[in-house]
């Protein structure tokens, strides 16, 4: 089933290649493919047992072998599986994609065949990343998912797309490079490429080796997330990307970074994660505040949303490295929340851009008067992003912050100011777009959202509300794996405390 899920988009690719290059046909094929994948994703959701910690629905086929100098052989498998860390992201990817395809009707106006081809290749890549249970295969999909965005950005992007594309590419390649080094050395030292196997063996490595590999992984993923100070590619990429590209980038691609941090940073090297958690908490909290201030200073609405991502992903990193039950759960939930809220924001920005061909805040004002439906969705989304209780953002943020407070009250206190600054930039943007007098002539004739656009927004808003009201439906799926992980971390903490006590006793003696 997971094989089907991953490779179904490629079947769509085949159809796209064969079909004529007409917008309707191509979009139809892409929509159909993504819908089937989405349905499969929902079936997977139904089959998945939240209480179970291990990989589920696993499939494994021998792929090839890497010969090591000392005569050892590392078998590489074509292996798929899903657990509590990946389930939400897999389903998010599958479910988000049809909406992305639908949204393209407003802004993709050339080279349809290529566009939908890359879009579906990207879907395979992203699903592969989350579903891989083999490290080499993970890397394969990781790289696969990056190429399409490079083209989407470079061909269908805005006026400064080349600069943004090159920047995105350089950052990404730098990250991949560092990760490749880590992967090769990990394979060499453990002799396995199977992720579950790696989890049990990685702890046996020499601590200094562990630190190096952990650091390389962390760096690679930190660029992807992006964490402060590697975030500057994001604003440019988002600003120049077409709406659909931005939605995928924010909704799923960035989650590959946070997913990687959790899987290969924390799950693989919990000791290292514990030793360096202070650094990550600091960077996470700093990212929250920094991103918010960055967003406040923007005059381009899309760039503002892009900067807000830096802030929101700071929460995800913070919760993860709090290494507490509440923090981990909140962090995984918040990945989904960010995908929904920021995805919605980008969709809305795209919708108004298609009408006005500008995103500058000072070109708007009073739009609520002429576009009341748009105003409703905009305010709803802003509230979801600002973490209003009852909507999705709050539950994630609350779990993250309370989990962080238990680990470090200081960083929780710094991060909690993000609640204030987040409200500032979001509400200022809302006011400047929607409220005030209708001063610009061009805005007076704006048409409100049509049925297609409402149809894209409503399901995502319903999802936001659903998570807000009944988060357990979602958090419950992650509980098995995350509890096992936090139990392990708890054990390490207890051992550390005992060792410290023993050494203290010996010293006093």
């Amino acid at each position: 089933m997971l094989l089907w899920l991953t490779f179904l988009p490629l079947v769509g690719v085949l159809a796209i290649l064969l079909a004529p290059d007409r917008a309707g046909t191509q979009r139809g094929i892409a929509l159909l493919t993504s819908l089937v994948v989405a349905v499969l994703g929902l079936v997977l959701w139904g089959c998945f047992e939240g209480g179970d910690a291990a990989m589920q629905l696993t499939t494994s086929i021998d792929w090839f072998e890497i010969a090591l100098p000392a005569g050892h052989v590392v078998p590489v498998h074509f292996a798929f599986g899903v657990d509590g860390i990946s389930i939400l992201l897999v389903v998010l990817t599958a479910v988000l994609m049809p909406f992305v395809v639908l949204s393209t009707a407003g802004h993709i106006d050339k080279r349809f065949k290529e566009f939908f081809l890359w879009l579906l290749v990207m879907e395979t890549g992203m699903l592969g990343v989350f579903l891989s249970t083999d490290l080499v295969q993970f890397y394969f999909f990781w790289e696969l998912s990056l190429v399409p965005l490079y083209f989407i950005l470079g061909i269908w992007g805005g006026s400064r797309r080349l600069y943004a594309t090159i920047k995105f590419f350089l950052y990404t390649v730098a990250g991949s490079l560092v990760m490749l080094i880590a992967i090769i050395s990990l394979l060499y030292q453990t002799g396995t490429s199977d992720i579950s196997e790696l989890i049990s063996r990685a702890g046996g490595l020499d601590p200094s080796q562990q630190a190096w590999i952990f650091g390389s992984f962390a760096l690679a993923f930190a660029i992807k997330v992006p964490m402060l100070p590697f975030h500057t590619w994001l604003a440019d990429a988002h600003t120049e990307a077409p709406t659909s590209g931005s939605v995928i980038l924010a909704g799923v691609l960035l989650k590959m970074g946070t997913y990687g941090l959790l899987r290969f940073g924390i799950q693989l090297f919990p000791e290292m994660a514990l030793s360096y958690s202070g650094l990550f908490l600091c960077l996470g909290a700093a990212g929250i505040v920094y991103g918010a201030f960055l967003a406040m200073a923007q005059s381009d609405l899309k760039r503002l949303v892009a900067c807000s991502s830096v802030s929101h992903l700071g929460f995800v990193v913070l919760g993860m490295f709090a290494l507490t039950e509440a923090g981990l759960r909140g962090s995984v939930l918040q990945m989904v929340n960010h995908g929904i809220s920021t995805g919605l924001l980008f969709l809305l920005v795209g919708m108004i851009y298609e009408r006005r061909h500008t995103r500058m805040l000072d070109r708007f004002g009073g739009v609520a008067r002429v576009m009341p439906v748009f105003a409703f969705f905009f305010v709803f989304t802003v509230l979801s992003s600002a973490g209003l209780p009852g909507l999705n953002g709050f539950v994630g943020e609350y779990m993250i912050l309370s989990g962080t407070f238990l680990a470090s009250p200081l960083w929780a206190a710094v991060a909690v100011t993000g609640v204030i600054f987040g409200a500032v930039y979001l509400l200022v943007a809302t006011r400047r777009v929607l409220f005030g007098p209708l001063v610009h002539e061009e805005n007076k004739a704006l048409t409100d959202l049509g049925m297609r656009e409402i149809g894209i927004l409503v399901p995502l808003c319903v999802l936001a509300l659903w998570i807000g009201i009944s988060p357990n439906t979602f958090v419950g799926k992650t509980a098995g794996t995350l509890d096992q992980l936090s139990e392990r971390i708890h054990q390490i903490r207890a051992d550390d405390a005992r060792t410290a006590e023993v050494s203290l006793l010996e010293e006093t003696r």
Partner: protein
Amino acid sequence: MLWLIPLFPLVGAILCGILHFRSLAAEREGASPERVRALAGWVAVSAIAASFAIVVTNWWTLVGQAGERVLESSAWAWIDAGSFHVDLSMVFDPLSSVMCLVITGVGLLIHIYSTGYMHGDAGYAKFFAYLNLFVSVMLVLVLSSSLIGLFVGWEGVGLCSYLLIGFWYDKTENAAAGQKAFVMNRIGDASFLLGSFLLISLFSTLDLSEIGEAVPELMASHPGSLALAALLLFGGACGKSAQFPLFTWLPDAMAGPTPVSALIHAATMVTSGIYLTIRLNPLFAAAPSVLLVIGFVGALTALIGASSALFQRDIKKVLAYSTVSQLGYMFLGLAAGAWSSALFHLVTHAFFKGLLFLGAGSVIHGMADEQDMVKMGGLKKHMPRTFVSFLAGAAALSGIPLMSGFFSKDEILTKAFANGALYWPLWIVGVFAAALTAFYTWRMVSLTFFGEERFREDGVHPHESPASMTVPLLILAAASVFGGVLNLPEVLPFSDLLGHWLEPVTELGDTILATGGGGAEHLAHATEWILLGLGSLIALVFAHRGFHAYRRGIVADEAARAKQPELVAFLEAAWRIDSTYMDKVVGSVKLLAFFIASVIDQLAIDGTINAAGAGARSLGARLRRLVDGSVENYALHMAAGAVLLALTWIWF
């Protein structure tokens, strides 16, 4: 059945929201939206009425119960964070019953009033959607068994307040005022959140009654943490209940329609902080130092509010500063451990301040949207029902003997006085602010309803408001006059009804206070009589002075300004606190944002990256012969390089 209490208005809100879009569609098609709008009004009023009816039945059940007096609903397992759970359920006990009665009772009157006041507004259905939503979340706030459930309501009412302040969003000031309210509230909320995290780490639960019961155990081992948690929660209360230093949003909040000012910014939402403190009275009682801080903040806020109201010309601004000031009194009462007195004042204040705002709204309505009292005068002839009810409200606010506000304010001051020498300075400030209150209240009455008819120059023809507006006014007027019977002082018969009713909730806090040696001492009857007499005297004298000084219009202000220009300007600007925030804080935040975006992000971080990129490009230009420029080749070379690097690193 308890879930139905907030559910009715919630459904009403959704229906009104749908009707709003229907009315917009009707307008676009050229049809009259009147019928759809009228339907929305009916839906909203009936939803509140239904909710009120359920509240009353439940209250009656509660009255009939012996002992415990608690009704609890089924629980909804909301958040499961592993180390702690949040189960939402609704608890109907003496405290929440009083709050619910006020919210749905006063809320119902204000809904009815609004059907008249908002008549003809394009956003009529939307207004009722927001108003119903507000009542719903406010009920969640007071009914929730858990601190997080309370926070859901807490943020929800903040949202409605934001939406309703900026209701007429065509004006930038209105939208900005809504935004300010939300952000100031969020500052308090950040503190509230930290407080809740601390409570989780201390108690491993957020259930309000469990926290209360566990306080005595933790008092000895964690006094500092308990005090810190109480202080952080009070920080949240400062935001929502407009206390110094976070009160500056409330005067601006008057940008919203007047019924909103009455319901949200006087009667209900702004009292959430007081509710929170009463609800967690054991926690606050365990932290006497925090109580002293609360008393100080309350007294200071009472003084700032009352003195700032003295020279306002806008009738709603007077009432807004007055509300800030009255909330300060309630906190002063809480600080003295007089939980039921604070609640008593909360209830009477909901009556008389709701009434005064609605009265002001009726005046504004009749004066064609004029809010400047200088342009009013002599309205008593033209708006007799509004006038009579406004008088009752003014009498209650200024503490004229036997009015509801007289008893409730006096009780707070008496308890503060009885609380020992530390509280005497606070008591003096309170008495002084009471004198100011009487003065500005009757200045307002005099300027609006008496003296010359100054509106004639502007060609305004004032008229009495329709019955939908005046009937709620008269009902509230009766409540403002007779509300005192809820909790008469001990020297009178039938005393302390509310105090006894509340005992199951406040018992634990009282015990904790008493064991710590705090709390109000029992005063001799003679002392009580003296304090009552003093209160009456001050109210009467200053009401008289305020009333007569302004019989001839605003000239008295001019005289004061001529004598003390500095002081008057300072008070008009509400101690220049808001302007300081606007200049200093907002300015520095903007500067910092600019600095981060331009200097750090673009110059430092991006500059480094671009420089590295440029270096790479010039290197690339030299290597161009080697590379044909296709992406595949770049990728190939990089991969090769990476492998090379990795291998070197492994072997050496």
